[in-house]
């Protein structure tokens, strides 16, 4: 089911160890339905429907979908918090619910909204308690803590109580908490939500390094195409509980047209910019009599700088910004594409 082997290396990622073929996550027909009460009537709502996926050791997989598409439900089933309605799930070769306590030693999870840390304790104390919880021997605890402090740049807030941390600092501390026991599988639920560009970048770099060093398997849900582009070589798209796409990021971009957009503000009104002859970019639209124009470009084929240069050659640019493609948008377009299959070779629907 997985697309490994076909995968191009993720852009921007460091040397990534090849997947070893060992299976870390395996679901077959995984289904989870909830009963929703509407007044007196009860209705079955399917959060995850017939999900069959295999993730090999060392893979980095982006798990994307709109809000309420079933991402969190899947993660909870992988971690042993929720019992599946049907189908089977194995995480690190274990049955998540039955073998929860053994599984806990092998996985690390960062839930975007729930904290592993003790809000009134300094970061170091939270990590020390977690080390005791995971029964790390003192020597290993020290080595691993030193390593995480260094690589996540936590020294500056090491003694600060968690409640006083900035969002970016807190997320770094959360990641350290989830990775302290060197789990084989790390699941990250919206790790970069709300972070500024620099914090996002740092976090992504750390995760890339962590993978490179230990061959850790990564599974992350996100709304940020940048996360997927920089961290994952494989993407799973879930929509209304069903797997809508499983394959390489490039394939997704191809299937859905996940272009980035350059927005330029011009000094003077201008006609719609036409740069297709120079770079792989196309005009999307103009506002304010052409004072602001939007150009879509394929990040695989060219760069924002080249598009900007091409535009600057024609008109005077006062200001500009680059918009990442929105995941929901990508998914929507993927849907449009898969409903008219001819131009969507990489998309598979289960």
């Amino acid at each position: 089911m997985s697309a490994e082997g076909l995968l191009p290396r993720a852009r921007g990622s460091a040397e990534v160890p090849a997947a070893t073929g060992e299976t870390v996550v395996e679901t077959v027909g995984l289904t989870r339905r909830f009963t929703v009460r509407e007044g007196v009537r009860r209705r079955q709502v399917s959060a995850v429907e017939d999900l069959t996926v295999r993730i090999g050791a060392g893979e980095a997989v982006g798990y994307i979908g709109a809000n309420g598409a079933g991402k969190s439900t899947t993660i909870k089933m992988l971690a042993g918090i929720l019992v599946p309605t049907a189908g089977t799930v194995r995480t690190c070769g274990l049955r998540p619910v039955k073998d929860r306590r053994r599984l806990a030693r092998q996985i690390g999870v960062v839930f975007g909204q729930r904290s592993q840390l003790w809000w009134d304790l300094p970061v170091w104390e939270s990590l020390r308690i977690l080390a005791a919880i995971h029964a790390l021997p003192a020597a290993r605890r020290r080595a691993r803590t030193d390593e995480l402090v260094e690589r996540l740049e936590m020294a500056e807030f090491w003694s600060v109580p968690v409640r006083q941390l900035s969002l970016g600092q807190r997320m770094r501390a959360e990641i350290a908490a989830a990775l302290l026991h060197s789990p084989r599988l790390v699941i990250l639920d919206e790790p970069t939500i709300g972070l500024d560009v620099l914090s996002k970048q740092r976090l992504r770099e750390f995760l890339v390094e962590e993978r490179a060093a230990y061959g850790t398997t990564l599974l992350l849900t996100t709304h940020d195409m940048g996360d997927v582009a920089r961290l994952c070589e494989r993407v799973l798209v879930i929509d209304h509980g069903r797997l809508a796409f499983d394959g390489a990021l490039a394939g997704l971009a191809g299937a859905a047209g996940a272009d980035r957009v350059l927005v330029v503000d011009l000094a003077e009104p201008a006609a719609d910019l036409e740069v297709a002859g120079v770079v792989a970019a196309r005009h999307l639209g103009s506002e304010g009599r052409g004072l602001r124009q939007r150009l879509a470009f394929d990040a695989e084929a060219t760069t924002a700088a080249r598009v900007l240069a091409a535009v600057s050659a024609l008109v005077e640019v006062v200001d500009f910004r680059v918009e990442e493609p929105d995941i929901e948008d990508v998914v929507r377009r993927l849907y449009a594409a898969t409903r008219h299959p001819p131009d969507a070779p990489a998309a598979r629907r289960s």
Partner: protein
Amino acid sequence: MVEPPAVEPLAAVSAVASAAVAASGPVVAEPVAGWRDRLRPYRAVLASRARSQLSYRTNFVLDLVSSLLSAVVELAEVWVVFHAATRLGGLEFRQMLLVFGLADLAFSLADLVFGHCDRLPTYLRAGMLDVFYLRPQPLLAQLITSEVSLRRLARASVGLVALVVGLVLCDIDWRPAAVVLLVSSLLSGVAVFAALFVAAGGLQFFLVDGREMTNAFVYGGRYAATQPASVWGRPLRLVFGFFVPMAFTGYLPALVLLGLPGPVWLPGWLGWCAPVAAVWAWSVALGCWRLGVRHYQGGGG
């Protein structure tokens, strides 16, 4: 007391990483054996909770004082009734002190360790329970050891004083059996109240918006336990005498110590049976907890 930041001299990230691989590698922590090791995680959490409470000095003193005052007020309520009626349910106030002391000390000690278990919806809302799932200890053990309320010590001291005063003022035949009875009843009483908190936690998986429901038997139970059970009508005797075995935490053992006969449905010899009540309460509590967890995993939560 702050651990110095553990920062090594700057080194190339890859070097640090590969060194760490050599040192540890992505090894999975081995499950540990031995009681000391197994208790270490719980000790670590509890010690930090205790330290944290003590570090907010003013707050902690305030909590102690309010906890003390509320226990004093509860005792005052009992005293006021006896002040107006002199004898109630066949007991005088000094005898009532024994009942109050036994039950309230047991409740306070249980509250100290288990009191937060009946605030499960708070844990659910904060996502704490999902976090417990990610740790290699049993959920209930994690919940119980996630907090300790040292301020209840103040409350316990009121119960202890009432008990000691009651023991001194009443005419008690201090045979060894009486000591055994006193100790076993107190321990069983703590266990019974602890079970109430755990049962409340289990039921609150279903009652997220209605957590107050469990107050009926937890705090209602505490109130019942500090009454002479002889004033209860038959329905109350069934409910708080046996189903939620409150009479076993204070009244019934006190009857045996005082050498008094019991009322209808609550014969004096039941005073020896507090441990049985504790076993019953815990089987119900664990049942409730298991049902609750199953409900939560089933997605009702």
